[in-house]
């Protein structure tokens, strides 16, 4: 460990020296960082397929209702919680939770907010490396050769087989060395940016990456909307018909109201809003803790959420499914393709670019844009754990980055090795990205609106606000959002968990062992995070729980 000289001439560990508090350098910087965290692969690959396969335009009604009642209120809760914790001197979830609820158990709930982003990072960085590999392969022209060799009509099957061989869907094992090299490059790049710190790493990168991402998407969108009727004729006809496939309300045996009475559409729409805005990941909580005491959270939170919605509804909603329909036709866009982000993104879209004029250029732009969307998200997944290690154990950044790099490398190796049917990736995605984030969002909402108290929450959130939150939103935050969240979670558990367990039961013994191993690994990771919180508990037990000079509202 590095040492510094104390005033008495005695060497003291550098870790013991007080850390300088980090802050965002600008309001736009924090908005871009939070928006970058929220805008990810789900915006471009999950949302369009989900909307198109579940009612088309009608899907947007439950989608926007969920945005107003669930997404935006919980975002404000996370921003408010984070800034409050940061004002008390804490950046990690255990510290922030302990300021809100003065109970020894409170900090242990923070273990969820450390474990969730780490676990998601373990598979997300792998998908991120696929996007970069595809972008590089488009730049070199090798991905266009796959379609040329397959011939007209066989592109979709060729790209499906190419993807299966690329990730090793048929059997467990490590991929080819070229893919591993790109994975290592992406992994190291994430840690390099994190090592540079909040402003010089995360904020600077997002300030450039987000505009470039949006610019790439706008170029692709302009190309898609001006395709008209492609020559030679394509199975989807013209762009007008293709947009209709995405946006026309699909009413199965009734009107719009009868479609809206289907609970599944509400479940899917609210789930999409929830995952898309990155609420319940513990990331916004951490990012907001680097705000200054009187920095605005209301307008910044809303702007970051709306930027995410712009990428999802206005860019992805007008690009992904319409262009896939135009070039591949309805026969190739069944529920199996629309319901799978990988099938839509890595089988269908390359087949589209194979037929599109200047497809190599647009293929490169598409996958480079996906890479940017992924890296701005994966970066944000590392910061909560770094903040925890620095705060809980008073470690310098170099040591925190090294420890986190080691832990995540183990998880990434597990995901990469157990590639058969992408079982490891799918298992982490299901149990962490779905189950755990619901739990964390529920904990945060209850802590803020019920334990901290909605009156204090209101005063705290409105400090320095550049926008007034409508009065009804305090009622929504206290009653509607937690109830809505609970109803969705219970309904989702009733539908999805038995289905998942049946799916696991139907696997071969070898595959079942893989799933059980990954679940045990996740449980061990959560226990490890709880243990780390326990070891560093004194850091928060003796902490201050009020902002100096602030009147405590009863």
């Amino acid at each position, binding site marked *: 460990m590095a040492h510094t000289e104390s005033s008495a001439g005695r060497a003291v560990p550098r870790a013991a020296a007080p850390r300088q508090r980090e802050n965002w350098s*600008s*309001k*736009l910087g924090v*908005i871009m960082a939070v928006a970058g965290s929220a805008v990810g692969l789900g915006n471009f690959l999950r949302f369009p397929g989900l909307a198109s396969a579940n009612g*088309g*335009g*009608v899907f*947007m009604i439950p989608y*926007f209702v969920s945005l107003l009642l669930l997404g935006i209120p919980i975002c404000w809760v996370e921003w408010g919680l984070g800034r409050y914790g940061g004002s008390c001197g804490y950046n990690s979830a255990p510290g922030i939770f302990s300021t809100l609820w003065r109970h020894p158990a409170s900090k242990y709930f923070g273990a969820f907010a450390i474990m969730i982003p780490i676990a998601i990072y373990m598979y997300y960085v792998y998908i991120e490396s696929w996007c970069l590999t595809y972008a590089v392969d488009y730049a070199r022209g090798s991905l266009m050769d796959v379609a040329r060799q397959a011939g007209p009509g066989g592109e979709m099957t060729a790209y499906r087989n190419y993807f299966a061989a690329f990730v090793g869907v048929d059997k467990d094992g490590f991929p080819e060395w070229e893919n591993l090299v790109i994975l290592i490059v992406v992994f190291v790049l994430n840690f390099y940016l994190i090592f540079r710190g909040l402003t010089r790493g995360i904020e600077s990168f997002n300030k450039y990456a987000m505009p470039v991402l949006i610019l790439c998407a706008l170029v692709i969108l302009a190309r898609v909307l001006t395709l008209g009727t492609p020559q030679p004729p394509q199975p989807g006809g013209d762009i*007008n*018909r293709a*947009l*209709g496939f*995405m*946006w*026309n*309300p699909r009413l199965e045996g009734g009107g719009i109201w009868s479609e809206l009475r289907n609970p599944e559409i509400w479940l899917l729409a609210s789930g999409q809003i929830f995952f898309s805005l990155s609420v319940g990941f513990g990331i916004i909580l951490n990012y907001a803790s680097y705000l*200054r005491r*009187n*920095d*605005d959270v209301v*307008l*910044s939170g*809303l*702007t970051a959420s*709306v*930027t995410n*919605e*712009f990428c999802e*509804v*206005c860019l992805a*909603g*007008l690009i992904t499914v319409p262009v896939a329909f135009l070039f591949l036709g309805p026969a190739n866009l069944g529920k199996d393709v629309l319901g799978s982000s990988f099938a839509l993104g890595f089988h269908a879209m390359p087949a589209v670019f194979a037929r599109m004029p200047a497809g190599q250029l647009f293929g490169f732009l598409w996958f480079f844009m996906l890479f940017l969307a992924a890296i701005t998200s994966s970066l944000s997944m590392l910061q909560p754990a770094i903040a925890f290690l620095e705060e809980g154990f008073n470690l310098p950044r170099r040591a925190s980055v090294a420890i986190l790099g080691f832990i995540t490398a183990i998880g990434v190796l597990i995901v990469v090795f157990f590639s058969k049917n992408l079982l490891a990736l799918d298992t982490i995605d299901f149990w962490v990205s779905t189950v755990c984030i619901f739990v964390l969002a529920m904990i945060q909402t209850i802590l803020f609106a019920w334990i901290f108290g909605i009156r204090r929450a209101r005063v705290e959130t409105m400090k*320095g606000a*550049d*926008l007034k939150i409508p009065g009804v939103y305090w009622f929504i935050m206290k009653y509607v959002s937690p109830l809505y969240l609970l109803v969705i979670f219970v309904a989702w558990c009733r539908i999805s968990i038995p289905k998942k367990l049946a799916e696991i039961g139907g696997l071969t013994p070898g595959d079942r062992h893989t799933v059980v191993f990954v679940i045990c690994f996740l449980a061990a990771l959560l226990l490890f995070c709880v243990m780390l919180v326990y070891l560093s508990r004194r850091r928060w037990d003796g902490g201050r729980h009020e902002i100096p000079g602030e009147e405590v509202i009863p």
Partner: protein
Amino acid sequence: MTVYGWIFMLASVGSVVGLMVFCFWRVFRTPRLEEHMHAPLDIDTHDADQGR
């Protein structure tokens, strides 16, 4: 595309774009915190007159 399709598309895209323009307009219009603040020498406390 049907009339309902156009309505859903334009309403969805229009509302998001409108809200985004409003939010960024407010973000850029609001002066930075340091622009609100005044250095001690800028603040006239009127106590300089009392000494005359």
